[in-house]
């Protein structure tokens, strides 16, 4: 019976979806049109890249891109190496204090570095790292979340594979590298996408520890650029906003399935 008139629900779903896309669509409209069309929706309005050119000229966005790229790479590389080693130990070794240590790692899932800003600032300043990219990355380098995900993945590796590698004379590092790492591929992709998205978008901590163009990531650069007191044109600010979102948004549009699956896998744990 329902099949005859599914349209009410379909229409409702489409209305909500269009509403959901509206903010994004609007920011694209405003970024690609001259300022006088910022709130006038005229299909004949001329397209322009002028807003992007002006944003690019008025703030060192090239440097911000570089900083964010460096930050994201540094965090991800560190997290993967450190979490792999830790997850291997937790999944495959029986040792004194294992449960206590695992509980200590899980503390970070509960109380994330995001809320420990006051004391982490002290630690970073004690290390003499204020206003550097490593300062942004360090509190996130040991990821309880990554360790947890990889431990789950490593636990499901069949013992026969480990035995076979050992018979061939592989050391414990050899086993890790040749058996566990390749089998953890989907987990690595899931964790990698979530981590890159998180750190590309992260804002409060970088805002606190950076203070110069040389270390500021894109998000902080955008906030500094768009601050109302700078009096920059609205259309130019949206262009800068679009520039900040663009790489991740494009990656998402290209690899939708992987993104959704990764976020899901990572969230469900």
């Amino acid at each position, binding site marked *: 019976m329902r099949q005859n008139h*599914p349209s009410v629900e379909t229409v409702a*779903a*489409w209305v*909500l*979806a269009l509403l*959901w*896309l509206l903010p994004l669509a609007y920011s694209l409209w405003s970024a690609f049109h001259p300022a006088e069309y910022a*709130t006038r929706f005229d299909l004949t309005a001329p397209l322009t890249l002028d807003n992007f050119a002006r944003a690019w000229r008025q703030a060192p966005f090239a440097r911000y891109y570089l900083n964010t790229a460096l930050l994201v790479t540094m965090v991800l590389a560190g997290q993967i190496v*450190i*979490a792999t*080693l*830790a997850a291997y*130990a937790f999944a*495959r*070794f*029986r*040792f*004194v204090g294992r449960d206590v*240590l695992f509980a200590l790692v899980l*503390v970070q899932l*509960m*109380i*994330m*570095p*995001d*809320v*420990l*800003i*006051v*004391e982490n600032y*002290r*630690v970073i300043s004690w290390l003499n790292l204020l206003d550097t990219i490593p300062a942004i990355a*360090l*509190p996130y380098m*040991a990821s309880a979340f990554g*360790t947890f995900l990889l431990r789950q993945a490593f636990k499901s590796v069949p013992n026969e594979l*480990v*035995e076979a590698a*050992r018979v061939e004379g592989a*050391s*414990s590092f050899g*086993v890790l590298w040749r058996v566990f790492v390749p089998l953890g591929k989907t987990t690595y992709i899931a964790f990698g996408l979530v981590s890159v998205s998180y750190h590309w*978008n992260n*804002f*409060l901590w970088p*805002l606190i520890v950076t203070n110069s163009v040389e270390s500021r990531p*894109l*998000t902080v650069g*955008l*906030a500094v650029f768009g601050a109302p007191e700078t009096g920059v044109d609205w259309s130019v600010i*949206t262009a800068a*906003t679009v520039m900040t*979102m663009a790489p991740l*948004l494009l990656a998402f549009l290209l690899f939708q399935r992987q*993104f*959704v699956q990764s*976020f*899901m896998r990572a*969230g*469900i744990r």
Partner: protein
Amino acid sequence: MVAAVMSAAAPGTARRRTWLTNVNAWLLLLPALVLLAAFTHYPILATLYHSFFSLGRSGPAEFVGLDNYTYMLEDDVFWQVLRNNLFFALATVPTSIALALLMAVWVDRKIAGRTFLRLAFFTPTVLPMIAVANIWLFFYTPDYGLLDQFLKSLGFSGHNWLGDPSTVMNCIAVMVVWKEAGFFMIFYLAALQTIPPELKEAAMVEGASRWYFFRRVTLPLLMPTTLFISINALINSFKLVDQLVIMTKGGPNNASSLLLYYIYEVAFTFWDTTYAATLTVTLITILAAVALTKFVYLDRRIHYQ
């Protein structure tokens, strides 16, 4: 580094092997433990420690017992941000869950343009909060902003949405719901796909309506997912404050400030780090309570085998 994988235990050299295994495991864990100690464990303990001391702007910091806590309990702004945070959680968590469920039910079915719908709902998740705040800030700008222009075209008058204490929290809540609902949708979607189709067929045969089936079968089966999402959304409402930096700076008159934003202000605008530590102890306590609830009611049963 040899002979450390626990599956290969030979009785003869057992003791030496156990010792090696221990050393190996601890070495593997060393980098993670050092970093966690420096940026999670030590900061938690230091927060607690510093909350018992005076700031020592003139002279050395002194032990002041519970003075900072007494001050906190008498601080009107503290109570206001706590109330705000509670309101913010109540405004965003149920709404985003309801919307997420609705979206998931829609895209789970053979609906026209399913891929597009899913894309539209999920996209806000991958955008930086700071960019999102920039866009919505313009929506809410008085007179010139999109919302006011739209209202004016309908004959209503403009309103200073973010400048009015009675509307500012709702405006921010709407934006956060928009950003989060699609993220929660995917968990419902995953859960919906695990419901065996036979259940639905059986219900059809029995003549159950779709709504009845949803209420009596789907919803109860989704309960663990709902709990999981609620807790995650609750935690997010305490740790996500990026938007305030751009949109309101906690104003007007702290009407939109949240606990973490207040900590940020106290620590890095007023540089009162001991009071910020005291406030952080409160935040840590809240987060720990939420996490323990999650562990007791959820993880033990569902996520940790």
